[in-house]
């Protein structure tokens, strides 16, 4: 039982005063950010990332994952009391959470959300602990061909499963990849893509500048325009009695918890999916298997359990591929992966060997962060609802200032401050016209690895792309690469096949009339 030894070792790291303090700070800040309408975990992690420059990487990642967790808890607060989702991950929580609050059961809904989040998160961490070491060991055998096809698969999931126009997804991915080539060519060392001779581009486009631009500044511009319409504010008081009675009530919904946790974990692992679709899927699946499907939407606690269990489970699930394969499972983990690079760590399976303290410290801290989050949430809900009183006209300029400073911090360059604002404007336009932002950030973070593995593979195969389909020198020697490649091809084909089927159906329908 090597896992237990490692986990114990991890706890010994996670409970050191600095790491514990970072976890508490992260959970509190994360819950506050999650509770603010419009801002979610990805915004929180991107905006607060510069703080981690002051601490060692282990404390840094503990801080970021605590924010991630906290935001998942916090998102439910404004969903339930205001009918405004605190983050996209909490949209499904409004379906039954707000009706419950209207019926005078706001306390029950909030307690239900917190307890569900705790259960979803904990089940998911246990799965994570069991799955991570074997997956990392498997990934250790990956060569350049496997690495490249794996990254291609990550991009393909966005086009195949991401919804929306797949061509726009492809454009977003390509922009991220092209931005990653700005600066010095990693192999020949020569400057490239510096657009004439612009000095600010020599150090490349820092991913944090893009993340802060898109998720910080762009988000504020977007919310400045979208006037969020709040329902009637519901006053909340949570007493110990409410907590106990709600937990008693929730015991009979074991099936909702099981579906939410498992669905969340596995959906969360997929790069394109993450917590938002996981929460929607869980809501509809739990509704289908519920004894009282008619109660959904009118304010049943089962309708709060389903999405809240799933979104927390998914956020842990998304960390599994990030840590073991170096492929983030959600926008937030993409930003976290970029942070790893900034701290000088090489994401991927080697972390499990070279940085045991980092990996196991993080895993243990997830257990701790989850306990902290549920306690802080149950006893400080009224405090967090006060954050909702903070008006946009104070929050917005505050975040803009923090973003400007955050754009400067990683590179010490005012040029990057400008760049962050330009990315902010671009992100705003992209969001309005349905170009997805997540693949762009993911592609910028993974771009270097993608290019290096592509070029190394081509050198190995003397310029033949057959290596990605498993063949090297005419011999089938890379089965994993072949499997990953064909899956990517299939994912890119899904939208095309779908469009063809729709086209023929329409023609059949027209012929009938």
């Amino acid at each position: 039982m090597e896992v237990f030894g490692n986990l114990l070792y991890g706890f010994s790291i996670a409970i050191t005063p600095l790491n514990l303090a970072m976890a508490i700070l992260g959970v509190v800040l994360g819950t506050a950010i999650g509770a603010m309408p419009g801002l979610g975990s990805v915004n929180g992690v991107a905006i607060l990332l510069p703080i981690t420059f002051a601490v060692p990487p282990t404390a840094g990642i503990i801080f970021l994952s605590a924010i991630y967790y906290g935001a998942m808890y916090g998102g439910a607060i404004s969903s339930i009391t205001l009918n405004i989702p605190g983050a996209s991950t909490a949209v499904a929580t409004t379906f039954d959470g707000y009706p419950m609050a209207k019926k005078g059961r706001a306390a029950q809904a909030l307690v239900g959300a917190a307890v569900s989040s705790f259960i979803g998160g904990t089940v998911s961490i246990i799965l994570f602990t069991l799955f991570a070491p074997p997956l990392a060991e498997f990934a250790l055998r990956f060569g350049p061909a496997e690495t490249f096809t794996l990254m291609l698969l990550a991009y393909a999931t966005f086009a195949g499963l991401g919804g929306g126009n797949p061509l726009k997804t492809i454009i977003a991915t390509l922009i991220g990849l092209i931005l990653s080539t700005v600066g010095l060519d990693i192999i020949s060392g020569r400057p490239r893509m510096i657009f004439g001779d612009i000095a600010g581009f020599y150090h490349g486009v820092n991913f944090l500048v893009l993340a802060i631009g898109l998720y910080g500044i762009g988000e504020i511009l977007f919310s400045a325009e979208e006037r969020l319409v709040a329902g009637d504010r519901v006053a909340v008081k949570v007493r110990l009695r409410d907590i106990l009675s709600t937990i008693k009530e929730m015991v009979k919904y074991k099936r909702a918890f099981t579906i939410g946790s498992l669905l969340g974990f596995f959906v969360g692992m997929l790069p394109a999916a993450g917590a938002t679709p996981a929460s929607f899927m869980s809501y509809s699946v739990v509704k289908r298997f519920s004894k009282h499907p008619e109660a959904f939407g009118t304010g049943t606690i089962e309708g709060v359990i389903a999405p809240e269990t799933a979104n927390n489970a998914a956020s842990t699930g998304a960390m599994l591929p990030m840590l073991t394969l170096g492929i983030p499972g959600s926008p937030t983990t993409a930003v976290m992966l970029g942070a790893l690079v900034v701290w000088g760590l090489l994401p991927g399976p080697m972390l499990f060997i070279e940085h045991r303290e980092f990996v196991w410290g993080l895993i243990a801290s997830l257990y701790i962060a989850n306990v902290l989050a549920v306690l802080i949430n149950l006893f400080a809900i009224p405090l967090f609802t006060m954050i909702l009183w903070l008006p946009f006209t104070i929050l917005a300029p505050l975040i803009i200032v923090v973003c400007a400073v955050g754009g400067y911090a990683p590179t010490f360059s005012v040029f990057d401050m400008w760049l962050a604002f330009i990315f902010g404007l671009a992100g705003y336009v992209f969001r309005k016209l349905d170009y997805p932002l997540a693949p762009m950030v993911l592609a910028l973070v993974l771009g270097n690895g993608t290019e290096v593995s592509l070029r190394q593979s081509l050198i190995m195969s003397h310029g033949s792309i057959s290596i990605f389909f498993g063949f090297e020198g005419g011999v089938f020697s890379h089965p994993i690469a072949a499997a990953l490649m064909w899956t990517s091809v299939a994912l890119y084909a899904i939208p095309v096949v779908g469009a063809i089927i729709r086209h023929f159906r329409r023609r059949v329908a027209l012929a009938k009339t």
Partner: protein
Amino acid sequence: MRRADVALAFGLAALAVVFAWYAQELPIGWVHGEGPGGGFFPFWLSIIMGTVAVVVGVQEFVRGSAPDRAAKRFFTEGGLKQVLLIAIPGFIMVALVDVISTYLAAIIFLLFYTRWIGKHPWWISLLVAVTVPVGIFLLFEKFLLIPLPKGYLDELFYIFY
């Protein structure tokens, strides 16, 4: 919405041409003894990006004629004003960073937005405009040891160290 959709798609296609132009400054083909050249990856990605963007542009042009899509406006009612009211002061703040220091620029920006756009009372505006920069100063200069740009006012900040 249709005009914006089509314009962005063709704008991105043009951007892809710019990318491709700068990418081919390094070899885009096979370099003997080195494998694919430094321009190989960005160049071919730009070519794909340009092609896909043109397809999207044509797609939006055809699809955009559907009444539900054509009627939708890019900006919501009064939305442009709200966006510009935060974007322009934001850009001005960044422009001032290298002149009157990050802190003074932030104070002016925060005061302007909370007082004139947000219409908050003076004491709230002042509270926000002072505590935020002070907090940033403590976090970055003292805790993170990252000096932020101070423009021509560099010497004024000596007293704070």
